[in-house]
Structures are given as C-alpha cells and as structure tokens.
C-alpha cells in the first residue's frame, strides 16, 4: 500500500502554492499561521518516512480492516441492467471512510509532538473516527459538533463520549457542520502550540485538502487493484461518490483523475430541491469565495455572507466544497449531480432491500443517481459506499411510518 506521496503532478492535484486551478490557498488570520505553516512544511516529509508508511499501513490493515471489499452488487446491477460494484468503506472500523484520514493525521500529530487533538464533525462519523484514534494513542480529544447535529446524530455522540472524547456543542449560526468548523478553528487559535486540528474533509487551508485527499487515496488505490483482479481491467467507466466537503469522493477519484476515460461523478445534497432554499448543492448554488480559509465554491448571499445549507444528511450539510472539487467542477473533469432528501431515502431503502446493506444517508445520495446516468449493460460503475446507516436509523424509521 502506498499513501500517494509520490504521485506525479497532475493538473487535478494541488500545486506548490496550495491551489487547484484557481481554488485552494490558505486564507488564514495570522494567529493560525504558525500552526498551518508547521503542517505545510512537514506533512509530505513525514508522510514519506518509511516508518510512518509502515505504521499507517499496518494500522489500516490490522485495526481498520483494510483493504475494504469491492463488492459486485448483483441484484442492484440487475435492476439497473449494468455492472455495479460497491466500495465497502462502510465495513471499516467505526463504520465509514473517515478513519483512513484520522489514522494518518494522528500519526502525523504524534510526530509533531502534539498532545491535544481537536476535530469538527457533522454526522458524527469523523468525530467518532477521531475519538477512536485518540483513544488508541492516548491523546486528549475535543470534538466540536453543531447542536442541531447533536440532536439528530445521538448514537454517534454517545460513541464519542464512550471513547473518552469531550463533545462541545457549537451554538452559533446554523448550529451545524460549518459552525462546528468555526469553533474548532477558534479553539486552534486559542491553543496554538500543543494542539493538532484533525480536519475531517478535503476543506480548510492548504495543506489540509491535499493531506486528507492523500490519506483517503487508499480508496481508489484499492479499487484499481481489486477491479483488475475481478474484471481484468483496472479502470471503471464511472466512479460515483457523494460530496459534502468531499473526502470520500477525493479518495475514490484520486488515482483516476488523469484517466480521462473514467467519468467521475460527484453527488451533492439537493435537500428539498436545488432551488427550494433548503439545499446543499454547492456547485449549483455557489460562487467563488473564501470559506474556512480556502478559496472555493460556496453558497453565499450577494454581499458575501455564507448561507446556511440544508440536507437531511448531516454529513453533507455544508455550504462549501473542497477546492479540488471546485476545480473538478469548473474544469469539467467531474460531473456534478445532486440528489434530494427523498431520492436519498428511497435509494437507502432500495439498497437495504436488494443487497442487505443499510447505507449511510450520505452514501445513499451517490446511490440515488444510478437511475440518472444512462448506464449501459457493459458499463462498470464503482459506487463509494462511504458509510453504514446505523447512525441514521432514527431518520429511516421516521420515514418508514
């Protein structure tokens, strides 16, 4: 396994200044400069160390349970008259792809001598994955979570607490992921020396989008190998992933970006409909601007105030998108679709009944677009099943009634 540290420069990867095309950069107040600069100077150096790679690899194998299976979903394939493979990130320890990144960052934080870990979380998957690796390494863990999300993701809050983390409610603004991120950034400003901030998505100031994408790139690295084994060809026709900030999509796309024959499909949350005023479909509704220290597409008013998004899925309820996705969108390399709350719910039920797999609501957005892609019988499609649906049972049960 290789954590994509020696990837040749691609026009879709970050450049030396931290930009993907016109997007990215580090729009940070001076108070954050030393922290971010320390990371920027060290992240590639540390990721290249053989001892680091060995430890990362070993933990992903023995602790996370990688490689995650690439599963041929025969009944789903039959339904859509095509070939659909599910990349089973839901089978990872802690139930989602988030742990790939937290394992990487906790090892990095330890090498930087940090004693205290902070994180933001939306659905709680990243919070759980962070609390997990902090328990594993014996480090203090503080997770910021919007108070609205604390309500709708109770099982994950309980998990974090059982793992020894302190969960701090973010009560400003929309009280969701964006505000949890603000609070985590503020904590980092107030604790500049001993604290590492484990961002959970490909957002934030450079080098975070690149660092997180590289840790998640294990997803596409495995897909390539597994697909070759199963089909004799390493390249699928489509890779589909949901996008909030976009970390599972970044990981699932990473090793395919230069293979232009592979269609990269990002599915955003349309909420109650793209133009309903209750949506999180950033590529459709956003304009270039700066959110959480990164230049990207974001949902905002004409005078530059960040708009509060809506999605039934807490993990996609974010008004921005990682700068690499903004670049994939504007350059035309990525196809950006969106799924409504209702479409996602229907897709979750469909997968449950056809394949016996209850997906996370986030991942259900990706599944919801299978019907819209005009897939041909010989097309090979990989859907990144980023997480499992246990945390969403309450929402699912409500819908069942």
């Amino acid at each position, binding site marked *: 396994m290789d954590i994509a540290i020696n990837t040749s420069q691609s026009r879709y990867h970050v450049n030396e200044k931290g930009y993907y095309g016109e997007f990215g950069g580090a*729009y*940070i107040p*001076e*108070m954050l*400069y030393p922290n971010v600069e320390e990371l920027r100077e060290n992240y590639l150096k540390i990721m290249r160390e053989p001892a680091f790679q060995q430890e990362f690899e070993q933990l992903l194998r023995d602790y996370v349970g990688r490689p995650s299976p690439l599963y041929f979903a025969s009944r789903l394939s039959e339904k859509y008259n095509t070939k659909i493979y599910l990349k089973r990130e839901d089978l990872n320890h802690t139930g989602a792809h988030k742990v790939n990144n937290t394992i990487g960052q906790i090892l990095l934080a330890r090498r930087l001598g940090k004693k205290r870990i902070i994180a933001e979380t939306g659905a709680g998957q990243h919070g759980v994955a962070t609390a997990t690796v902090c328990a594993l390494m014996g480090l203090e863990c503080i997770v910021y979570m919007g108070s609205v999300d604390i309500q709708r993701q109770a099982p994950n809050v309980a998990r974090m607490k059982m793992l020894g983390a302190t969960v701090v409610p973010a009560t400003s*603004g929309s009280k969701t992921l964006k505000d949890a991120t603000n609070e985590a950034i503020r904590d980092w*400003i107030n604790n500049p020396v001993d604290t590492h901030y484990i961002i959970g998505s490909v957002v934030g100031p450079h080098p975070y989008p690149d660092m997180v994408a590289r840790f998640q790139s294990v997803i596409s690295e495995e897909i390539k190998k597994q697909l070759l084994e199963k089909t004799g060809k390493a390249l699928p026709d489509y890779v589909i992933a949901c996008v909030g900030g976009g970390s599972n999509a970044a990981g699932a796309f990473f090793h395919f970006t230069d293979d232009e024959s592979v269609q990269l499909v990002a599915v955003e949350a349309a909420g109650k409909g793209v133009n309903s005023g209750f949506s999180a479909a950033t590529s459709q509704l956003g304009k*270039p601007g700066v959110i959480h*220290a990164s230049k990207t597409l974001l949902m905002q008013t004409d005078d530059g*105030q960040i708009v509060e998004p809506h999605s039934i899925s807490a993990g996609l309820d974010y008004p921005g998108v990682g700068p690499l996705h903004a670049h994939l969108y504007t350059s035309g390399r990525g196809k950006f679709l969106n799924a409504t709350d209702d479409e996602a719910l229907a897709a979750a039920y469909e997968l449950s009944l056809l394949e016996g797999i209850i997906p996370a609501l986030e991942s259900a957005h990706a599944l919801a677009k299978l019907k819209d892609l005009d897939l041909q019988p010989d097309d090979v499609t990989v859907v990144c099943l980023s997480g499992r649906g246990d945390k969403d049972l309450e929402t699912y049960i409500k819908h069942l009634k």
Partner: protein
Amino acid sequence: MNRIDQLFQQKPKEVLNIYFTAGFPQIGDTLTVLQALQDGGADMAEIGMPFSDPLADGPVIQDSSTRAIANGMKIAVLFDQLNGFRDKIRIPVVLMGYINPVLQYGVENFLRSCQEVGVDGLILPDLPMDEYETEYKPLFEKYGQHLIFLVTPETSESRIRKIDSLSRGFVYAVSSSSTTGKDKDMRLQESYFRKLQAMKLQNPVLVGFGIRDKATFQTACQFSNGAIIGSAFVKAIENSANLQETVQTFVRNIKQ
C-alpha cells in the same frame, strides 16, 4: 498625508483605537457611535464590517455581527452611511472585516469606495500577505488605503520584519494567541511586547485583544504606541439606552 500617519506623527503615545460593528446595536447607529467616539476623545475608530463566519473573533463580536447582518448591514449599506461623514469626523477610520464579502463587492470597487468616503485603512485578517503583495498592493496604494497586518506572540522575528515592511499605518500586535474577547493575562506576554519594542519596527504598534479597561490599556501602552479595544466596547453599548452617553463615558473612563 494619510490621517493614520498624521495621528502618529502628532501623538506617538497612548493612542486609543476603538472597534465597533457597523449597524449595531441598530442599523442606523454607525455614525452615532463614530461621532460619540470622537467627541469622547478616541483617537481612531475601527469599524467592523459584519461577516457570518468571523473566524478570528470570539462570541461577543460574532453576536454583534449576526445582529448587524440581521439589521440589514452590508458593505454597500455601510458606504451609503459613511457618505459625507468626513464633514464631521476628523479622526482616522479603518475598516475591519473578512475577505469574502470584500471579494464579492470587488476588491477595486471596495478600495475606490473607501477612498471616496474618506476611509484611511483596512484590516483584513484573512487576506494572506503573499496574495496582498503579488496581487493587491498597487491597488491599495492607488486608492490611498493603508493595509494593517497582525502579529502574534507566535510570529517569528523574520516574519514580523516582513509584516512590518508590508504594513502601512501601524502594526496590530495581538496580545495573546486567542480570538477576540478572551481575557488572557497580558503580563504573561511581557517578553513578547519587549521583543517587539526592541525590534524598533518602522511602523507604530497598537496592541489589541484582551484590552478592556483603563488598567489593561495602560499596561499595553507601556510597550506600544497605543491599544485597541473591541469586545469590551461592543458589550458596553449592546443594551445602551443612551448611545452617545454610553460611548463617551466608556472612552473617558479609559482616557482619564
């Protein structure tokens, strides 16, 4: 000559700069507060352009921003309010805000409006120094706007030199590694202030963050050319029944 430079030429010590959020507590209060600050004896004013996600600010300034936005405050509205304010206000005025609303307004449009109404400088904490230097510096100069950069206790000496060389007007020394409105003990930062003093920067230095009353103001002034009060002032005027009186009393309590 820029009013900020004039001020420090005439008064190199104990400069009091007060921050307040535009359109707070009520949308129409911006000029009332500004006038009362001048009447009370403030040397400079810093007007906050409210932003929905102010990363460097604590709860007091964020709450005032949220209210100001709800009141209808936007950059365009602020410029309308400031139109003609130089008939009455002689103290230097700087605008403070985050880069995103400025980008949406258009950087050059924004700088032109600043010059037209009589703003003297800007504090944009999340505009990176490199981007300013490579993309925007000539524009700021064209429209006579000083850009004021921040330094913190964690800023390296070489970076402080760089910041000092790019800053115009003054350097904003953040008193501790914190968001605004935290009451961290300033005496702990004495070595940092002494270091700054010994560096003999080309710009005057104003200390901000954690300055809230006469005592903290005077401590800050021992090591600098003056200080900036923000959260404590915003809190003081939040529920004021007589804004002019509250503002003037606040300033006099610091100055006397």
